[in-house]
């Protein structure tokens, strides 16, 4: 059974599912058929150019790479940016999160819930959503996504691939006029996030079928979880320590960027270009969950699972409500990731608003010129799709000698593979394939908002999908394709 093409990280993706003698799912393989080679070809580059170069790893979340690279530069040059610069970076980053999470919910994932997983395919997209909830909402989605990117551009210089990151700060400050505009945008984003959570409430949480779907076995995978937290163990996207909890919710590790190598390792398989990160101290046991397997997840749900709360008031209320409804912590249901993402959307909007009103945010003091000899540094941020680690080593002239990258979606490579297999196993019995298979498999995949899919970020939001089902003799049994 082949699902090709799905979507992309640095390209496309492919799913192969094999049936056994009984016609049940024997195994599933999730393959990433592309590689760029950043870890090698960045050698020899000027290290201060890494924010520009590595943002081209992903045009969907370039801000994440730009920020991880810029933070790695702070460490390489042993320089601490002025407080206003850190705030500007976080403000840009919060605005980016608002845009990114908005797109995911409305365009990719939302249609499954708003229209229903079994709705006709032609309706299960953003256009169907607009028909059902009203045209105003469609324009509102476009407006709020675009406004958030306006804020990104005011600070970062560009809407796609920002350019402001320098070791020791940012390349420019913002004017009072820009600040006022960003504050206005942020206010509106908060209302929009509240509205979105209300919509999720009305459509998803008040529907028993959906709640039982969220809680169902084939969407539940106990794993370790990973995410950045601040000094009070609250969710933070831009800075803090990486916290890992075990499948029972106990703290397993908490580490600063420089210590990542003690905690992470990556496994290689010959059938995919993407590696499989896992927790080094637990070890690689294959594509399985549970406490004895080093497989972890780094998603919106993972970030909420590792944290003790949210740093902004409205998001905190929602956080509590989610765990009261679906808890106890940690929640293992993959589909709860959608709810977690919306709580993060609200947090990002609130944080954006807070920072836009910070008295320091228009300060001209946004750069500290480094004076130390560059050598080595690690930068970590939470990309929307997982903890992102950039590690550079340089010579004394600041030319890159070695690079290591552990990229957002890559963290979840093992877990995505497992979720796909689980969903397929739940749906394919005795060679009979449910017509809901395509979408149900997609739903398992989509919860991770994998950056394999810019499909995530597009109209009308169905990832291209083809399923070829082979029997045990590998003969084509049936071909399913989206109409």
């Amino acid at each position, binding site marked *: 059974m082949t699902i090709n093409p799905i979507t992309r990280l640095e390209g496309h993706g492919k799913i192969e599912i094999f049936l056994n003698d009984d016609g049940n799912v024997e195994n599933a393989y999730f393959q990433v058929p592309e590689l760029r080679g950043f870890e*090698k070809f960045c050698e020899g580059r000027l290290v201060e150019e890494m924010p520009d170069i590595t943002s081209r790893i992903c045009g969907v979340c370039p801000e994440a790479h730009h920020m991880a690279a810029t933070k790695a530069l702070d460490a390489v040059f042993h320089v601490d940016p002025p407080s206003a610069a850190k705030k500007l970076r976080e403000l840009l980053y919060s605005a980016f999160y608002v845009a990114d999470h908005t797109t995911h919910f409305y365009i990719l994932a939302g249609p499954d819930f708003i229209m229903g997983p079994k709705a006709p395919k032609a309706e299960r997209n953003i256009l169907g959503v607009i028909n059902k909830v009203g045209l105003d909402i469609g324009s509102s989605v476009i407006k709020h996504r675009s406004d958030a990117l306006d804020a990104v551009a005011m600070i970062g210089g560009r809407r796609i691939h920002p350019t402001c990151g320098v070791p020791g700060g940012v390349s420019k400050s913002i004017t009072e006029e820009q600040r006022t505009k960003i504050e206005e945008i942020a206010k509106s984003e908060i209302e929009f996030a509240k509205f979105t959570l209300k919509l999720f409430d009305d459509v998803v949480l008040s529907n028993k079928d959906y709640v039982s779907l969220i809680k169902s076995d084939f969407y539940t995978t106990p794993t370790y979880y990973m995410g950045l937290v601040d000094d009070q163990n609250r969710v933070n996207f831009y800075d803090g320590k990486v916290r890992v909890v075990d499948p029972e919710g106990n703290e397993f590790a908490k580490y600063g960027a420089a210590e990542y*190598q003690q905690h992470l390792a990556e496994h290689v398989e010959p*059938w995919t270009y993407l590696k499989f990160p896992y927790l080094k101290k637990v070890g690689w046991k294959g594509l399985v969950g549970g406490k004895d397997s080093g497989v972890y997840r780094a998603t919106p749900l993972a970030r909420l699972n590792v944290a003790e709360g949210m740093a902004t008031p409205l998001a905190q209320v929602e956080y509590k409500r989610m765990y009261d409804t679906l808890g106890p912590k940690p929640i293992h249901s993959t589909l709860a990731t959608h709810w977690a993402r919306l709580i993060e959307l609200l947090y990002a909007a609130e944080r954006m608003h807070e920072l836009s009103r910070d008295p320091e945010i228009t300060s001209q003091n946004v750069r500290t010129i480094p004076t130390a000899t560059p050598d080595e540094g690690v930068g970590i941020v939470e990309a929307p799709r997982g903890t992102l680690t950039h590690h550079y080593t340089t010579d004394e002239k600041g030319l890159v000698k070695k690079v290591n990258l552990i990229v957002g979606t890559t963290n979840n490579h093992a877990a995505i593979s497992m979720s796909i297999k689980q969903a397929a196993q739940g749906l394919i019995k005795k060679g009979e394939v449910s017509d809901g298979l395509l979408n149900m498999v997609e739903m398992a995949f989509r919860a991770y908002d994998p950056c394999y899919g810019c499909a995530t*970020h597009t109209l009308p939001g169905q990832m*291209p999908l083809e399923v070829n089902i082979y029997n045990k003799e590998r003969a084509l049994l049936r071909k399913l394709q989206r109409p």
Partner: protein
Amino acid sequence: MANPKAAFYWAASCGGCEIAVLELGKALVDVSKKVDIVFWPVALDFKYSDVESMPDKSIDVCFFNGAIQTSENEHMAKLLREKSKILIAFGACANGGGIPALANTTSKERIFTRVYKETPTTDNPQGVIPQTKVQVKEGELAIPEFYNTVRTLDQTVGVDYSVPGCPPVGEQVTAVMNDIVAGKLPPKGSVIGASDKSLCDECKRVKGDRKIKKIVRTYEIVPDTEKCLLDQGVICMGPATRGGCGAQCIDANMPCRGCYGAVPGVLDQGAKMLSALSSNFDAENEEEIEQIASGVTDPIGTFYRYNLARSMQRRKKARRV
């Protein structure tokens, strides 16, 4: 008259070009009323097999972004060339190789060794390397071949137009779409969605005498926001780079890195920049020239950042540039 049929495809790229198209927002909705999109894997549900079954030249215009780095990229480039009347190389990667073409500074073998064996977090005692075909117990799994050299689209198939930029800026994309709908495309072979002048021509900064005594790295100074960056010793690719981007990076007080490709009439963007730069060295003799030139520590990554596949050199040979 029937709407023109359009296709969009990505190869070795980051997805930023796709986002650049989506960024059009309302403008895209307007365009979509005048254009029938027949293939856009990232956004709409069409399969490779749908394209294969189309008659030749049945797509009016295909926007192809990304460089050619794998056998799948090459296959799709050839297929879409056959099916399309007009093939547009969209964005820096399709045109010059873009950032992925920095892989031409090394080799497939070295990349694989670094990624799958050497990085400090990789745990691979058996030295497993991904293979194009692998037998697993349930059957065979295949992935495309990774090429040693990254190529541009026009080094792979014939290309009719180029839209430069990493990514192309929104206003330019809108203008290109409108020209296509209105049937107002210039002669084939043209660069569209950009200016015919250099970025320096549209930069608002005040240009001085451009006497460079010392090359300065971007992290070493806070540049004056009114003065030309080259005058301040910062390498800015403006003189060698085509305009049309709106000088966004320069407005953010960062230099141009050349993503809009070479100025009109120039084949090799890096060579052009090198000559522009060295002619501005404020040096009396060889020794001083050497001294200033020693400030250029990564010539490939600086002068060919987005265009290495397009350069005369194309990839690193035994000799250093």
